[in-house]
Structures are given as structure tokens and as C-alpha cells.
């Protein structure tokens, strides 16, 4: 065996057990203080005591890091020396002079704005087809879902191979079309104008099954009595689809768009493994990794992280604002 596995695992495991005891003790301490010293009700003491691990985690791994990210983004912290306050210099450099910045924003935003709507729309259509009670349809559900369980690492390695310009599967399959139109085979990840389409194709293959399963769950949740009532009122299939099925699915569609958009903006593993040509720009999360962890420019990297966060936040706010226009919640007047 390479290295010393037990020697590596054991210290971590011991610290894990100690921390488990500490967390447990904190929970019991909270209960003791609330119940025996402040004499609060049983429910109050127990409730707070049970959620103590979450409160600790929220403070240590959410609140403190979030505030620190913002603070660090105004410094030149580099892991070696104590950070100096540099004002908005990081942001100025990023937006004004950093040649990587705009291509990175462009690639990340375009990827998210294009891939998420395509994937969600297709998954809604697919869910509608798969929700029909046809024989053997369950097999197709499994088939479509299969790519989603493939680890991202394997997905990207596989697609790098499929996108291989000379012997890749994709170029082989489209070679008849290429011959007819007399165009050169695209060098997907190697050609800056094909990097974006390549990432989108890859993401569709991975995410479609996953999203279809979610949409299918929502489609099945539509109460059948709505359709019966509509039939009595003389609605045809098309009207039922537009006025019942789609509106009833909008909450799930909304949820999916919000979650998928945020994760598309933070694409990392595929971005790192694809080894796409940097000429097309690097995904923002990969650029943050490059600046922060490869070049140790932590202050500069956190400024980029703040910008990425603000972009995601802005998109999320816009989506939430748009809810009133197109998302239908049961029990709500329309």
C-alpha cells in the first residue's frame, strides 16, 4: 500500500470523535442552561438543544465565511503575509485590466442562459411523453436517468473522447453532413468558437434525465379531478394541457430553473476536466480556483467570487420577481 493509510485516517477519525462529543456536549449544555437555569418550557429547551449543531454549523461554515469573503475581497491577502486593505483595487483590476475577466463572464453567463432553458424545456416535454401510461415506459425512464448518475469526472473524460476532432464519436457520426456541406470537422474543446456548444451538449446529456425525473414527479402530482372537471366543461386535450398541466407544473419548473441556474453558474468539475482551450475563456469558478489556489491570490480570487455571487443573486432575484407572472401556486387566485 502506498503511504500510510491508517496513519492518515486515524488522526482525522479521532478528531472526528472528539468533535462529535463536543457537539453533543454543546447540545446538552444548551438544554441545561435553558431548562435548569432559565427555567424555560420543555419544548423550548429541547427544540433549541436539538438544532444546536445546525446553529454552530451556520455560524462557522456559512455566516463567518460569507462575511470574510466580502472583507477579504478588499485586501491583497496571499496566504503568506498579513492582509493589507487595498480598497476596491481588486474589483478595478478585474473589471478594468484583467484579460481573463470578460471572456470568463461571457462563457459562464452564456452557458447558463442557454443550457438551463433548453434542458428544462426538453425535460418538461419528455416528462409529458413519459407520463403516458404506455407499456414499457418505465424502462425509458431508467434509460434517460442513467447518464445523471454517472460521476461528473467520468462524464467529462468520456465526452472529451467523444469530442476528439479526429477519431471522436461525434465527428464520425456527423461526417456525412460535413462531407456534403464540405466543412472541416470541428475541433470541439480545442476551438474557441466550439467550446460553448460542446459544454452545452455535454450538460444536456447529463442533466436531461435528472430534470425529467423531477418534472415527471410534478406531472404525476397534478390532480386528475382537474382534468375531469375540465372535460365536463368541454375542454379539449390542448386546452387541458395549456390551462391545467403546464400551470400546475410551474412551481416545480420554477424551482428547477433557480437551482439549475445557480449550479450552472458555478460549473467546476467539467470545466476543470475538459481541458478546453483557454482562448474561449475559463468558467468563473475555475478562474477563482486558478487565482486563489494555484496563484495564492486569495484577496483577488474572493473579489471574483463576490462578483459571481452577485450575478447569481441578481438572477435569483429576477426569477423570484418574475414568479407572479408565470408561476401558479395552488389555492391562489389567478
Amino acid at each position, binding site marked *: 500500500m502506498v*503511504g500510510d493509510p491508517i496513519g*492518515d*485516517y486515524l488522526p482525522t477519525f479521532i478528531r*472526528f470523535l472528539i*468533535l462529535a462529543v463536543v*457537539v453533543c456536549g454543546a447540545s446538552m449544555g444548551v438544554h441545561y442552561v435553558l431548562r435548569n437555569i432559565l427555567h424555560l418550557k420543555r*419544548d*423550548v429547551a*429541547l427544540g433549541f438543544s*436539538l438544532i444546536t*449543531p445546525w446553529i*454552530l*454549523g*451556520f455560524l*462557522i*461554515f*456559512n455566516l*463567518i465565511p460569507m462575511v470574510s*469573503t466580502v472583507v477579504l475581497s478588499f485586501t491583497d491577502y496571499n496566504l503568506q503575509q498579513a492582509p493589507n486593505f487595498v480598497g476596491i483595487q481588486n474589483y478595478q483590476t478585474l473589471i478594468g485590466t484583467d484579460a481573463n475577466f470578460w471572456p470568463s463572464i461571457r462563457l459562464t453567463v452564456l452557458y447558463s442562459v442557454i443550457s438551463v432553458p433548453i434542458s428544462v424545456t426538453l425535460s418538461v416535454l*419528455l416528462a409529458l411523453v413519459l407520463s403516458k401510461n*404506455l407499456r414499457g*415506459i418505465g424502462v*425509458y425512464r*431508467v*434509460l*434517460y436517468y442513467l*447518464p445523471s*448518475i*454517472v*460521476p*461528473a*469526472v*467520468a462524464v467529462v*473524460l*468520456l465526452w472529451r*473522447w*467523444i469530442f476528439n476532432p*479526429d477519431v471522436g*464519436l461525434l465527428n*464520425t457520426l456527423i461526417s456525412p453532413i460535413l462531407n456534403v456541406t464540405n466543412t472541416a470537422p470541428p475541433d470541439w474543446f480545442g476551438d474557441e468558437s466550439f467550446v460553448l456548444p460542446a459544454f452545452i451538449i455535454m450538460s444536456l446529456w447529463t442533466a436531461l*434525465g435528472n430534470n425529467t*425525473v*423531477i418534472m415527471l*414527479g410534478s406531472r404525476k402530482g397534478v390532480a*386528475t379531478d382537474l382534468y375531469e372537471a375540465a372535460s365536463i366543461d368541454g375542454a379539449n386535450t390542448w386546452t387541458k394541457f395549456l390551462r391545467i398541466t403546464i400551470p400546475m407544473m410551474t412551481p*416545480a419548473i420554477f*424551482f*428547477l430553473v433557480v*437551482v439549475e441556474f*445557480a449550479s450552472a453558474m*458555478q460549473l*467546476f*468539475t467539467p470545466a*476543470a*476536466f475538459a481541458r478546453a482551450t483557454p482562448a474561449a475563456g475559463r468558467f468563473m469558478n475555475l478562474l*477563482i480556483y486558478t487565482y486563489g*489556489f494555484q496563484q495564492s491570490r*486569495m484577496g483577488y480570487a474572493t473579489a471574483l*467570487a463576490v462578483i459571481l*455571487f452577485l450575478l447569481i443573486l441578481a438572477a435569483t432575484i429576477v426569477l423570484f420577481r418574475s414568479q407572479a407572472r408565470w408561476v401558479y401556486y395552488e389555492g391562489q387566485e389567478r
Partner: protein
Amino acid sequence: MSATVTQSTAASGNVPWTPARIRRVIGRAVTYILVSALGVVFLIPLFWLLSSSLKVGTEVFDQPVKWWPAVPQWNNYPDAWNALPFTRFLLNTLFVTIVPLFAEVFVSAIVAYGFSRFVFPGRNVLFLIMISTMFLPDVVKLIPTFIIWKQFNLIDTYDPLVLASLLGGTPLFIFLMRQFFSSIPKEIEEAALIDGANVVQTFTRVMIPLIRPALLSVSIIGFQGHWNDFLGPLIYLNTQAKYTMTVGMFFFTGGTNERPHWEWLMAMSTLMIIPILILFIIFQRYFIEGLTSGAVKG
């Protein structure tokens, strides 16, 4: 919809070919052709992965493309596996997957129990904050979290990947399990209390067994998350022997520079899929339940 199905099964022999029936049969045929075509599109890459993993090095570059190797090279698998210390990587991955998985599922269950069963001031506000952290991008926490671990001198140990699971659990898990707890009638707990059980006993002996399906669903989500995690191990582990499978794969270019061993990379990718595939085959229902309950109930 159910009416149509019963009609057609009853009608299979002697019903005349009315225009409506013809239309229905054609519609069904079109549906089948469409879903099958798409199914093939989804499967081809996976088939291609498997077939490439069994090719001789030179076959990989054969033109026109070979769909199946002349002689399947099963030894590609041990060869690739031994090109880097993948046995060690696998052990490392199992360690940073299983230990935190237990902790985060258990802690999430405790927190979810607190949120669902006890009335305390500020409960709804705290729950809302908990839900909103689900939407908080990891990227705003990444660098300071790294610095925290660095302050404790725990870079290049497994602590950052393992210890955090004890604090806070996972918002999505807490949310899903709270839904489950809320659906359990209060009388069950009251009965346990009357029988003299304390909160800990009620929780471990009565409530936990009742939410088994939710535990399985979140465990599967968690397993996938840790097994596939790449960014975490990449930034926290520096020594090659400590790498997880994903990081090992990242630095596994497949042999020498002059000729990358694509067949090895494909073999390792196939191996990465197998554990998840086995889990999926056994627990298919829970995969799908875990996935849908978040979006549909939320």
C-alpha cells in the same frame, strides 16, 4: 387517461378500426419511436465508453470507428488501476465518503426533529434562514473556509472533508426529513413518552425507524455527493497518496505524454460508474424519491 388504457386492452381483438383507434395506434407508435430514438442517443455514449475501455491502444484511433474491439482487452482494467495507486485512492474515497455520510445524515435527522416537533420562539425564522442557505453558492464560502482549516493546520489531512459533517448537517436533508417527521402522527410519540421513554429513546427507537425511506433517499444523495466530490479533495489534499478517486483521475493523464492511453482513461471512468450503478439498481425508488420530493413538495 386511465379510461383509454382499459378501453384498448379490452378491445384488442374484435373492435373495428375506427378513425379514432387508428389515430391512437399511430400516436402511440410515434411516441415509441421518439422515446426509443432518444434512448439510443442517451445510451450510445455509455456503450462507447465501455467499448473504448476494452480496445487495444492502437484500435482506439482506428478509422472508421470500431464499435466493438476485435479482442476485448480486459487487462486494460488492471493495467490502468496499477498505473497510479488507485487501490489507495479507493480506500481514501471510501473513508471521506462513509464517515461524513453517517454523521451528516444523523445530525440532519436530529436537527430536522427539532424543527418539526418542538415549538420554540424564532423557529420559523431560523428554518427560513436554514432553507435560504440551500441557495447560497458554495463559492462565497470556499476561500474563507479553506483559510479556517489552514489556521488549524489541517491542510493535507482529511479533516476538512470529514469534520464539517458534524456541524449543521445538510440543509436539503434537514428539509426533506422535516417533511417526513411532520407526516408522523403526534400520538406515536406521546405513547412512547407515556411508556416512560425520554427524548433520546423516542428519537432513536421510534422516530428514526419511521423515517427509514427518507434516510435512504438522503443517504443516496449524500453518497453521490461525496463520491463525486472533486473541488474539496483538490484544494485540501496535496500528497498524492492521499488523493481520492476523482483527484487521482484528474492527474491521471493515462501514461506517457507522447501517447495518452485513452483506453485506460475509459476503463477508469467505467470503474467510477460501477458503485453508483449498483446503488441505483438496488435503490432505484429512493434515488427518484429523493430527487422529486425536494422540488415537488418544496
